[in-house]
Structures are given as structure tokens and as C-alpha cells.
């Protein structure tokens, strides 16, 4: 029982099938450039970046092609050497058209990356934060929050612990797993930058116990003077969520609506950390990321370095998919979104591509039943909400009541409730609709 409350794990949560075996042991490989890359200008939360290139301009791989628009925004870099074909709209993941830079790689484009001004390890925190922004680093776990924006402790507050999220609780995905195995030194370098930027005294890398090799590998190479420990956590979804991870590792609970900084902690994804360690010493920006491409419909499953902006259809063609492909998810199956079409490009937040065939589709042919108030969702919800009641209220469009009395805004859409719901009620979708309606009502 003690383990439930202390460091170990958070309460509630679910245990979806992990389905990581197919790719966990496959080293990261490189994917070729697509004939046309589509780099959306808004791959992060916040203001879209502002293009600094013209149509027809030639760019070199790694060269900045867009600059941040304000603090809550990051720079973009050319994922390949080539010509800017157009700056226009491209299909985004939510089905909407978003501004993007169309880049046609040159036929002989190499993997060579141009270097910028390196950021030294002994730079001031402000310099590091700025460098991270200029490197275009956003949370690679999927949320896409500009990393530099959360490094500064709040006014009057402080951060004592830096948490590196190597949990990767989403089923199917092995991106972070491979990064931990293959980019250990980058992670430690990144950690040094982050510790310097935040002023945190120590760092903890949290790894779920289904990745013992990663934990052991990190431990072995741990530099002596780095105040970093590696904690192995039991497997549970959604342990990768900031608040859950902080509770699991520190036993601190972030209050509703609060940030991790309010409990003096900061969470950074392990892949993001590695990327910082990889880019900053060379003054580079993000041009590619590690993506797990897997799922029953994929022939050559694996972990790939994928250039940002690679359209889904090219990616799937390259790895080969079954003919009866029916659904593709960007990110994991729990929190990722379904791709509306195969024109959608890989962005910085895309940690995985999971493709299903019609046969294997996990949620097709489900009939929605009325809520029978079984309470499974209450036992699943890591935020201790009452999804059952929220779902009923949502169905009756009582959105205000959901927010006022049932803490709708604490829901971070992990999907644990809908996962366990025996009535197959699309709870998360209803909550999203409700939140959108509330935002709209508030705005008007």
C-alpha cells in the first residue's frame, strides 16, 4: 500500500496492452527524403512561426526557415537542402488547413546539417533558454509545448527537481526507449543544459520497468558529478503525463489548474532532452525526429529518423503497408490523433505512426450503449474526476456545470476513461467538445 502513495506510481490509471515488442529492439534507422516536404509553421502550442524564406529560395538542411513570433513560439529549420516551392496551406492533423512551407529537397540532398553558433555549457540561463528557442525545441512527447517557455521558474518560485520523462507509457511507441539506448550522451548533455537553465539541484530520469535495458544503460553511463538518479516505475498508463509522473517520483501533487513549477518540479521528455544535448553544442535546429512506425498494417515496423515535414503517404509507402489499411494514428493509440488523410506531415510532436488494417482495427464495429454507471472510469481517471457524470452532462450539453462542479478543465484527455468504458461512450470526444464550447462561450 505504501508503494501506492510514495514514490512508485500514481493512483488509478489503466493497463492497456503494451504492444511494444515489435519495435523495442530495432535500432533507429534513417528514412530517405520525401520528394516534397511540408513543414507546418505551427508545430507547437502558441503563435505560429514567421517564415524567413521566400518562394523559390534555396535552403540548406538545418538552416532556419522561420523565426519565432514572440516568446511562446519557436524557430523552424529546413529539414533538407532544397528549394522552397511554396508557402501556403497544408492539411493539418486536426483536419484543418494550416500555413506551411513546401520544401522540395534537391535530388542529391545529403544528411549533412549546417551548424550555427554553439551554445556553451557555461552559458547563462537566459542564453540557454534563448538557444533552445532558436533550436526550435518543443516537447517531443506529443504535446508540442515550446520547451524553453517552461524552463524559467515562475516569479518568486524555484525549481528544485528536474524530471526527465522516459516513461513512454503509450502502447506501441518505442521512440523514447530507443533514444535512451542510443543517445545516452546526448541526454546527459541536455540534462546539463537544463539543470543550468532551471537552477534545479537534481534531476530524476523516470523509466517504466518494461524498459529495464534502458534504465541499466543509463545507469551505467551516468557521469559521476551529474546529480541525476534513475528511477524505475511500474508500468501504468498515463504515467507519462506530467502530473502523474511528478506524483510517482516525488509524491507531490500539482494542484488543479497549476503548473509543475508550483510543486518546484519541471518535466522534460527524454527525447527532448536528448535533442537539446544534440543540437545546442552545434547551434543546430530540429530537422528530424525519431518516430516509431508500427501497427498491424505496417510491413517493416521500426524506429526511424524521419525528417520533419515528411508526408504520411511517403512514410507509409517507404515502410510498406497492407492494402486494407484503414486507420493511421499519429502519436500513440491512447492520446494520439487519427490522421484524417495521408497528406498530413510528420511534425515535431509526432512520436509514432501506428497503422491498422480494417481487420485489426481495434475500435471499429463498436456499438455505443447508455452509461450504466459501472464506475470503471472513476477507477481509471488519474485526475480523480467522475467521467461518468461528465459524460452524462456532456450528452445533455450542460457544459458550464461540467466545468463548475465537476472539474472538466482538469481533464487532460488521457483517454483512460474511454478505454475502460464498457458502453464504448466516446467520453474524451465529448469532453473536447464541451471544452471547446466553453472556450467559445467565454470568448464571446
Amino acid at each position, binding site marked *: 500500500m505504501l508503494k501506492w502513495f510514495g514514490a512508485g506510481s500514481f493512483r488509478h490509471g489503466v493497463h492497456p496492452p503494451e504492444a511494444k515488442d515489435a519495435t523495442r529492439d530495432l535500432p533507429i534507422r534513417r528514412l530517405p527524403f520525401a520528394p516534397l516536404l511540408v513543414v507546418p509553421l505551427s508545430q507547437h502550442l502558441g503563435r505560429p512561426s514567421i517564415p524567413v524564406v521566400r518562394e523559390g529560395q534555396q535552403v540548406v538542411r538545418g538552416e532556419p526557415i522561420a523565426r519565432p513570433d514572440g516568446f511562446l513560439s519557436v524557430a523552424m529549420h529546413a529539414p533538407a537542402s532544397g528549394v522552397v516551392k511554396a508557402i501556403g496551406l497544408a492539411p493539418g492533423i486536426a483536419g484543418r488547413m494550416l500555413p506551411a512551407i513546401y520544401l522540395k529537397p534537391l535530388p542529391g540532398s545529403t544528411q549533412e546539417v549546417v551548424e550555427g553558433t554553439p551554445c556553451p555549457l557555461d552559458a547563462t540561463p537566459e542564453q540557454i533558454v534563448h538557444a533552445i528557442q532558436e533550436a526550435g525545441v518543443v516537447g517531443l512527447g506529443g504535446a508540442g509545448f515550446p520547451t524553453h517557455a517552461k524552463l524559467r521558474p515562475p516569479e518568486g518560485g524555484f525549481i528544485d527537481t528536474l524530471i526527465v520523462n522516459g516513461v513512454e507509457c503509450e502502447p506501441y511507441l518505442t521512440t523514447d526507449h530507443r533514444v535512451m539506448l542510443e543517445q545516452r550522451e546526448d541526454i546527459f548533455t541536455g540534462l546539463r543544459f537544463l539543470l543550468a537553465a532551471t537552477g534545479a539541484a537534481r534531476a530524476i530520469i523516470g523509466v517504466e520497468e518494461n524498459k529495464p535495458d534502458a534504465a541499466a544503460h543509463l545507469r551505467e553511463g551516468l557521469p559521476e558529478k551529474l546529480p541525476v538518479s534513475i528511477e524505475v516505475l511500474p508500468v501504468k498508463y498515463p504515467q507519462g503525463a506530467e502530473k502523474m509522473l511528478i506524483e510517482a517520483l516525488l509524491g507531490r501533487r500539482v494542484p488543479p489548474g497549476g503548473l509543475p513549477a508550483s510543486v518546484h518540479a519541471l518535466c522534460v521528455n527524454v527525447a527532448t532532452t536528448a535533442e537539446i544535448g544534440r543540437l545546442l553544442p552545434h547551434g543546430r535546429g530540429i530537422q528530424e525526429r525519431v518516430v516509431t512506425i508500427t501497427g498491424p498494417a505496417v510491413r517493416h515496423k521500426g524506429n526511424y529518423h524521419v525528417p520533419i515535414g515528411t508526408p504520411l503517404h511517403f512514410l507509409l509507402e517507404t515502410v510498406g503497408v497492407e492494402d486494407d489499411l484503414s486507420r493511421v494514428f499519429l502519436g500513440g493509440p491512447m492520446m494520439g490523433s487519427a490522421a484524417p488523410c495521408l497528406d498530413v506531415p510528420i511534425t515535431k510532436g509526432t512520436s509514432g505512426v501506428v497503422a491498422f488494417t480494417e481487420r485489426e482495427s481495434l475500435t471499429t464495429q463498436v456499438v455505443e450503449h447508455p452509461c450504466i454507471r459501472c464506475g470503471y472510469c472513476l477507477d481509471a481517471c488519474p485526475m480523480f474526476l467522475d467521467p461518468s457524470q461528465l459524460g452524462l452532462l456532456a450528452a445533455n450539453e450542460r457544459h458550464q456545470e461540467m466545468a463548475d462542479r465537476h472539474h472538466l478543465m482538469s481533464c487532460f484527455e488521457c483517454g483512460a476513461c*474511454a478505454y475502460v468504458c464498457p458502453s464504448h461512450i466516446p467520453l474524451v470526444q465529448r469532453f473536447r467538445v464541451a471544452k471547446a464550447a466553453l472556450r467559445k462561450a467565454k470568448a464571446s
Partner: protein
Amino acid sequence: MVGPTRILEIRTSPHLLSGHRVETIMFNVVLALLPTTAWAIWCFGLKALLVLVTALASCLLTERAACAFSDRPSSLGDGSVAITGLLYGLTLPPGLPLWMVAVGGVIGVAMGKALFGGLGANPFNPALVARAFLQAAFPVAMTSWLPPFGPDRFGSLPASTLAPPFSRAVVDGWSGATPLAASKFGGELSALADLATGAVAGSLGETSGLLILLGGAWLVARHMMNWRIPVGIFTVVAGASALLHFVAPESHAPPGFMLFSGGLMLGAVFMATDMVGSPVTGAGCLLYGALIGALVVVIRAWGGMPEGVMYAILLANAVSPHIDRWIRPRVFGQVAAEGDG
């Protein structure tokens, strides 16, 4: 091959579902009820079979008709009505006229469920609504008990079973008292072993406590039943009756008797745990169970009726929205002092 403009099926996350399905849950409840049902038929013979079949059929047909009437797709598939029918049948006395069984089935499903909007909307357990209706409508027939293991129980039927519709039930032969009635009005206690195995007079399903517990254990093991509800009920009933028995042994039965007699087992394990009518939180379920237990003891000890499980559960059903209102999970990270909105 993969075309760039291919439109895919869109659905919001999560894209994985656990194996839980309403149908599976309901199927398992039926499965858990089977030993009790089989034992009831073995104890009471042909009449029990007929009562159960009639109960099931009337409930299923009513649900089908209600669906047709309100232009809903048939909801027979979700299996919840089958449970209602089976549970309802198990609460009836073995010799009840079949026409009354059918009336109760129609009332239970129509009034206890369809009127409120079907599955998930019924605030009360439909099987108990049906039984309470019958108890109020035909009190004599509902309290005429036949002993188990009667001679020739598979070859003959009591006259009451086949009473023509709307006619009085002729109670023929021996009409036994249930152990509870015998204890309450006659001061006699049945042997615990008889109670546990079911060799006593009573409703079809209130005979064997052990088989009911077995079914309950199956459901608990499969996470398809909230164990807190029966535990709450058993704890309070055992505790309160132990206290009463200690204070006044001559007028109050010992806890073992209280637990295994009457409909307590069936009610606690299968009726009170009906997910729709019970609270959703763990603490709420414990409280709900405790409330049922307390009501059962109060009604049994001081009320006019020998048995109070049915009323206790119906009353607790009515209280359960309040329990859900008062006991809500405290949202993650909220400090206790802040209180609950």
C-alpha cells in the same frame, strides 16, 4: 497502394478499448446466477422452472415491445433485461401463479425501466420494482411458501401455479413459513447449515447462500461487481445483529442466521450491486452498502415485516443519487482544506 488523398476513418482518441463490454458484464452476471438458478430448480422442481421461464419471457417481451413503441433499436442484445428477468424470477415464491409472474415482469420492465429511458436510466432495480409491486398487489400469494424437495416435484405442479389469469391462487397443501417469519413470529431459528445450503422454504433464489456467494466471488474476481457493496451490507448486518443478539438474545436472531436467511444474500450480491442504481465511488458504495444493511436490520428487528431486503435496496436506490452527490472523488491535487465544490 497508399494514395496521398486517401480518406481514412476518423475517430478521436483513445483508439484502444479495453475488453470491457456491457454485453460481457451482463453475460457474466447471468453466468454467476446460473448455479443459484439451477439449485432453485432442483429444490423446487417444475414449478420453479415455469416461474423462471415466465419471468424471463415476460421481461424480454416487454423490453422488446417498449423498444418498438419508442422507436429504439432492440436492446435485448445488451443482456441487461435477461438479468432483470432472471433476478426477478429468483425473488418470487415458487408456487406463485404464472399470470402474476407475467404481470410483475411487465410492470418491472415497463415501469421500472422503460419509462425512465431504458438501460442506464432506471434509478431503481427493475427486478425489485416488479417484486415490490407484486408484494403490494398480491400480498397473500407473495407470502405463500412451498417447502423445497417436495415429493414428485418434477412430475406435478401445485394448483396455484396454473391459476387462471386474474384468479385467486389456491394455496394447496402445506404452506411453510420462511425461516425469517418463523424466527420473527415464532421465535424459532433454523439451523445455519440448512440456511447456507438452502434446505428451507423461501423465494426461489433465497435458498442457497453458498451458491450465491460463489457467483458473487466469480464476479468480483472478474471486476464486474463492486465488492464494497456486499461487504458493507454484510458488515453492518452482522455487526448490528450481533449487538442486538448480545443485548436481547431471545428477541433477536444471531448474525449467522441474519446473514443467511431470507433474501439478504441474493439482494446483497446481485440486487444491490446493480451498477445503475448504486453509487459510482468506492466510498459511496461502502456507505450505500452500510445503509442497506442498517435498513435491513431495522426493518427485520422492529418493522412489521419479517423481511426487509427488498425495501432496503429500493430505499437505498433512492438515496444513491445523494450519495453520489456528497461523495465525489477529490480531483487530483486538490487540498483537503479546499473542500469539495
